């Protein structure tokens, strides 16, 4: 686990992680305002926080093993602690960040964490929920309605 400092609030939280190479990686969780994304649904508007990761001063998307582990520990803590929270991440399909998310999901041991992933136009929109604190079915219905109303996209399960 790498060292970090944090700045945590109700509408946004930032974690400043110091990597082994002494660089800073910022992990941010931010509530989405209606002017950014209007879900037209209280459950989503009140509970979705976007998660973003950016490295200060370094170009590239690669993450060392220790950094990946630290991000996962902080992610788990946030999703475990905040009631009703839905963590949203958008990435380019097939990108390093997308591969990292898939690795996190495949190796995750938190059986109460659920993931709803929507792929469209070369992008992937991933929503993480804690099924002990968030109604997964209601969230799924609200997300399907959002994509249909906002983008005219009807989704079906990927097989």
């Amino acid at each position, binding site marked *: 686990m790498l060292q970090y400092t944090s700045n945590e609030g109700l509408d946004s939280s930032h974690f400043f992680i110091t990597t082994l190479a002494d660089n800073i990686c910022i992990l941010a969780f931010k509530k989405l305002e209606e002017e950014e994304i209007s879900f037209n649904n209280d459950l989503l508007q009140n509970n979705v926080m976007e998660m973003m990761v950016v490295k200060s001063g370094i170009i590239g998307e690669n993450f060392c093993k220790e950094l990946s582990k630290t991000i996962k520990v902080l992610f788990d803590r946030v999703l475990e602690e905040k009631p009703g929270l839905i963590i949203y991440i958008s990435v380019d399909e097939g990108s390093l960040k997308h591969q990292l998310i898939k690795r996190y999901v495949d190796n995750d041991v938190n059986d109460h964490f659920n993931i709803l992933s929507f792929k*469209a136009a070369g992008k992937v929109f991933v929503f993480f929920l804690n099924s002990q604190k968030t109604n997964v079915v209601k969230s799924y219905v609200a997300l*399907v309605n959002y994509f249909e109303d906002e983008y005219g996209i009807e989704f079906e399960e990927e097989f």
Partner: protein
Amino acid sequence: MDNKFNNKGMSFVPKKEVSEEAKLKLNKLAESKKEYLSKLVEDYRAGKLIHQKS
């Protein structure tokens, strides 16, 4: 496992081809995220993001 998340998650794809209008809107969303990330780094470097605890 290649095309689908494990059994704790579900993955969805569009039933039909995504319209050009929807693609533009989705790209715009991605652009605004990039702008936010740039600002986040700028704010960090300028000392505007305060570390509260470790």
